[in-house]
């Protein structure tokens, strides 16, 4: 993966930048020792590593503002970091950057049940937002798989989704307001506890901008009362195409499940060997979950199973208890871990129109044969967000490159099918160079013009999202050291 050459002028003035950062932050919040900064050398896209020049851990919005003002004045690139769980390399440092970690900013600032919102510092983890309100039976809906570790800051940067977004939406649909620090240190308030923007929807623009427009330090999030209950049904089919048709029929029938998850043969076999969830021997498996009171769940599940029966399932297993629900979810929740046990893998994130599912799965199978790499498919079928897992051997010369090449082909296939490169993980560095496959140069120019407004010098996370060739003229050389 190509990254820009570190700016020698920035590297040359490290001592001065560190001294200035120390003047605005507590001593333990500036990490400049070469061994210590290695802790920040990568995120969850572990194939790529680069220690930053400096890492800072501010505790308040004002401290973030002070850090950015210093970096702005010195012309030093800044890479914001939540918990470092990005699968797309969104928090990958460059050697000449300051990593700005928000991990120390994890307070709950306000909880308001009548108005149904919570205001938090953005270093707080996703699951601990729900943790702060669950004693009153409320929850925060977006639930990315990494929710135990991932921070709200990163969720906002990537507009993270999760298994339950078919009903509850993704981060952008649950974000009501932010406090954001611009690259020049200016603090801006956007949105709040009221709904919808008065002027332009800057909140919608910031969410998903991958930390390139500002550093979000505080967020107002919508919270909801928990449903009375939730239960899944497991459906086994002997054909991917039939499972895909069943998904479309369920949606057309007017039932809106909270989740529809899909696993293919490789994933079923692998997770079964690993987690012994007791899944049936089949080629395609769906887990469909619905919510409500017990009677409401029964009614919805009976409608769903009636539809499934028309598709000649190998097995239908309706959960009747919390224990049975856990057993149904066990395999799905172990899937990534199970695959990780047998092989290195790369997880893709393209989205396709649900109607193209059978065609895309067939074509992925053909690509798998062409490249000689196995692919497992496990994904959110209700919204078409696929997660093909390409298996490769990190110790084998050239295998990673082959895997990346095949991944790029699969993502191009998603775009050709009417979908997109990334549904919930973000572009980062991983899909940066495929952006021309989805957008025209003019489309990308319009997006880069937005960054010009927020960060005219392109100092915030500059080498992400856009192909380096497209952003090159904007990524300005740093101000020369005095």
């Amino acid at each position, binding site marked *: 993966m190509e990254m820009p050459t570190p700016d020698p002028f920035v590297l040359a003035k490290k001592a001065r930048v560190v001294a200035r950062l120390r003047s605005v932050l507590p001593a333990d919040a500036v990490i400049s020792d070469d061994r210590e900064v290695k802790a920040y050398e990568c995120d969850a896209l572990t194939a790529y590593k680069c220690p930053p020049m400096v890492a800072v851990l501010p505790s308040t919005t004002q401290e973030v503002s002070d850090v950015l003002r210093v970096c702005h004045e010195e012309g030093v690139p800044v890479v914001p970091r939540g918990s470092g769980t990005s699968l797309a390399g969104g928090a990958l440092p460059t050697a000449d950057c300051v990593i700005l970690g928000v991990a120390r900013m994890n307070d709950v600032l306000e909880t*308001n*049940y*009548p*108005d*149904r919102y919570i205001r938090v510092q953005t270093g707080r983890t996703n699951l601990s937002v729900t943790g702060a309100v669950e004693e009153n039976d409320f929850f925060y809906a977006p639930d990315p798989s990494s929710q135990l570790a991932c921070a709200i800051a990163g969720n906002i940067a*990537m*507009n993270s*989704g999760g298994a339950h977004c*078919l009903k509850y*939406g*993704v981060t*952008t649909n649950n974000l009501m307001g932010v406090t954001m620090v611009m690259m020049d240190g200016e603090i801006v308030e956007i949105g*709040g506890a*009221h*709904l*919808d923007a*008065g*002027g*332009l*929807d*800057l*909140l*919608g*623009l910031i*969410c*998903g901008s991958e930390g390139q427009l500002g550093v979000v330090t505080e967020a107002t999030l919508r919270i909801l009362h928990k449903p009375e209950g939730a239960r899944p049904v497991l459906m086994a089919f002997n054909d991917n195409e039939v499972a895909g048709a069943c998904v*479309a*029929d369920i*949606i057309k029938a*007017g*039932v*809106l499940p909270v989740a529809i998850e899909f696993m293919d043969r490789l994933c079923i076999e692998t997770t079964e060997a690993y987690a012994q969830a007791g899944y049936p021997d089949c080629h395609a498996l769906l887990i469909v979950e619905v919510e409500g009171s017990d009677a*409401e769940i029964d*009614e919805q599940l009976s409608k769903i199973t009636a539809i499934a029966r028309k598709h000649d399932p190998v097995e239908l297993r309706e959960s009747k208890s919390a224990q049975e629900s856990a057993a149904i979810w066990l395999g799905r929740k172990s899937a990534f871990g199970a695959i990780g046990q047998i092989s290195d893998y790369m997880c893709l994130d393209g*989205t*396709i*129109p649900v*109607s193209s599912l059978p065609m895309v799965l067939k074509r992925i199978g053909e690509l798998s044969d062409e490249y000689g790499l196995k692919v497992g498919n496990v994904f959110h079928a209700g*919204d*078409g967000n696929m997660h093909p897992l390409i298996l490769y051997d990190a110790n084998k010369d050239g295998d990673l490159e082959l895997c990346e090449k095949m991944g790029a082909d699969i993502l191009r296939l998603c775009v050709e099918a009417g*979908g*997109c*490169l*990334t*549904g919930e*993980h973000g*572009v980062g560095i991983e*899909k940066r160079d495929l952006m021309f496959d*989805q*957008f*025209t140069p*003019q*489309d990308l120019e*319009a*997006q880069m*013009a*937005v960054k*010009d*407004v927020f960060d005219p010098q392109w100092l915030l996370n500059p080498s992400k*999202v856009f192909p380096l060739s497209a952003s090159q003229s904007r990524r300005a050389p740093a101000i020369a050291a005095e």
Partner: protein
Amino acid sequence: MTPTTETDVAEAIASATGPVRIEGGGTRPIGKQVASDTLSVAALSGISLYEPGALTVVAKAGTPVAEIEETLAKENQRLAFEPMDHRDLLGTAGVPTIGGVVAGNVSGPRRIAVGACRDFMLGVRFVDGTGTILKNGGRVMKNVTGYDLVKLLTGAHGTLGVLTEVSLKVLPMPETSATLHVHDLSPLDAVAAMSGALGSPFEVTGAAYNGDVLLRVEGFEASVSYRLSELTKKLGHYGQISQTNDPEASAEIWQSIRDVQSLQAHGSDVWKLSVKPSSAPAVLEMIQAEQTLLDWGGGLIWAALPAGRDLRAQIKDVNGHATLVRASAETLAAIPAFHPETPVVAKIGAELRRKFDPRDILNRGLMA
């Protein structure tokens, strides 16, 4: 100008020599109207793609909202954000278009439960102020590829680009729908009752107040009656409770709230305020309106005020924003329709407009 293709729109904008007013059906003339040439997208019409199994519809900007709603209804689906029809309130004629709905981020009562128009927007095609054809987003439900210009264009009132095509997420229509009435409540009790209902697991999809609190419940038959009875138990102590169980009668109630019918007869200014629901009772005290309607659990206040009175001056310390939806040209010359922004937000907005429309020709000054 009434271009019939996207390319024609691009050519019309590229060759424009002065300000251009962008129009869909012309039913929502909100904001300052500057005298200029009008470009209507009404001839860019038709549904380009509808996949019920994928909950997706793609339509050209000039497509009538009614045409989309009829097409969706045939498959038992709908635009869940329930876009308001402004014609009666604003005294306009014409055919509301999907492009106008999107440009105004127009939503209705169900916004409180499922989100606004912007939350259902999947993709846009548009022509910027230089005449360049651009796209963003697409037609899939989960898409984080690049910046979300879809949301930026939604609600931009045509000041960043001329929408030519939009893709939207649609949702299934429920089997039935009913309304619970809690009678004769004070604003304070009304907001408390609505907060109690919206903060319950019973999936209320409308919460409005016009002297009575009105709560809508939708879904499968058995589910609706179960939730109505649970809500009755929960809210019984606030006041006398009754139900409208006929789905058609219930739909009429919510259409009247959606279109703010109770304010139509007042020949005065009409304001729309977005506040935190619990602020609503105090705001009603402060503004002393001729007539009001609360929606979104109290978070949306519709208020009819005497002509020319600046409501914003009365609610200075309240967080939120106020839009002057209906007023005379003289009033609009003195009181801006859109809520004044903080200097830093206004600066970002102005610079974004300069990028998308460097000649400042698209709906010039409309949101100022």
